[in-house]
């Protein structure tokens, strides 16, 4: 009996190994991206990108320049992904009416489910997207100038004051306050008071920044990510907030889509 189950187990293991091997072979032979240059490991598996992106101090982005220096303007950086450093190729992919779809699993954040960004095909998304074309035309944006000046004046005032007090400014946070405040005001005529927060650290922007470093984990391991979400999201709010501040901010965003279902 033991021998029999061992035999069965080894057969299952063998089958699994063969399937994985078959997938690897496919990725470097008949896969549509197989003809593009790049590191062999990157063509075989996401592990190449993961090894950079899951480190808190590193990122695949920081290695793209040297990859292009070595492999040319188009590099296969993941089994299903090319990185493009060439205007003509870039325009082919991103021009209006392009037939290249968005990768659905990259744009599937629950909080923006149903938005113009979440529809993979540009053709399908177009009628929905067209509803906003007027609001973001060059003429409409031209009218934004006084609003930008107004927000910019508050921003500069604050920078000057922080400089007087000899304080260090985290520019990324500060600029997020400026752009967030401007975008919110233009889109919804409401002020979030982002520029009024002491030292440019309003909780919304702090939350967004705390959530950002764990985002790559969700790209690469969506299954585990969804499971973690389910566990963390079911904890009481104050527990989540205390131990998983990043998840708490994501939870807050997710709460909106629950409300509207």
């Amino acid at each position, binding site marked *: 009996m033991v021998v029999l189950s061992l035999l069965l187990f080894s057969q299952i293991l063998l089958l699994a190994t063969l399937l994985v091997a078959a997938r690897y072979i496919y990725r470097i032979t008949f896969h549509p991206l197989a003809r593009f240059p790049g590191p062999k490991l990157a063509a075989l598996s996401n592990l190449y990108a993961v090894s950079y992106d899951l480190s808190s101090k590193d990122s695949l982005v920081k290695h793209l320049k040297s990859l292009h220096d070595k492999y040319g303007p188009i590099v296969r950086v993941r089994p299903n992904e090319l990185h493009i450093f060439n205007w003509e190729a870039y325009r082919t992919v991103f021009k209006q009416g392009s037939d290249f779809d968005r990768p659905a699993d990259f744009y599937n954040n629950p*909080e923006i489910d149903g*938005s113009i960004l979440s529809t993979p095909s540009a053709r399908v998304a177009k009628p*929905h997207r067209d509803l906003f074309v007027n609001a973001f035309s060059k003429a409409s944006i031209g009218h934004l100038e006084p609003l930008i000046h107004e927000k910019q*004046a508050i921003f500069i005032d604050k920078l000057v004051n922080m400089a007087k007090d000899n304080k260090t400014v985290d520019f990324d946070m500060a600029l997020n306050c400026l752009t967030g405040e401007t975008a*919110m005001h233009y*889109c*919804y005529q409401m002020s979030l008071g982002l520029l009024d927060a002491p030292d440019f650290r309003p909780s919304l922007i702090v939350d967004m920044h705390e959530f950002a470093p764990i985002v790559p984990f969700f790209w690469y391991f969506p299954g585990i990510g969804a499971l973690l979400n389910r566990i963390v999201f079911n904890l009481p709010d104050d527990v989540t907030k205390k131990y998983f501040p990043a998840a708490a901010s994501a939870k807050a965003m997710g709460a909106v889509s629950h409300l509207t279902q």
Partner: protein
Amino acid sequence: MDSNHTLQQCEALISSLSRAPPTSNEVQSSIFRQALNPNKEKNQYVASKKELVADAILMFLAGTDTTAHALTFGIWEMIKQPKIWSQLREEVRGVVPNRDEVPSLQALETLPYLVSLVWL
């Protein structure tokens, strides 16, 4: 302000806009003016409330991070390469004779060095 609060505001906003009369200032000055009143004769898309709330959240997320990061990287590069910084400063000073004055977009768009920095 709590982020929970903020994003629920997006939902409240869409609710309020969809209740307001289509010709009201509230609707007309909103980016949702067309989405809330699609022209059915022209076969315009009719978005559900859930879709519009998702769009509202998207506009905030997409409008904040992207521009902020572009500006952060631009400033970082100029700190690392002071030559770029001083050349830009000199060019911009040409259209800002008075330090306290804010140059207009129209004036800024005539500056070749600034424009090429923004585009690259």
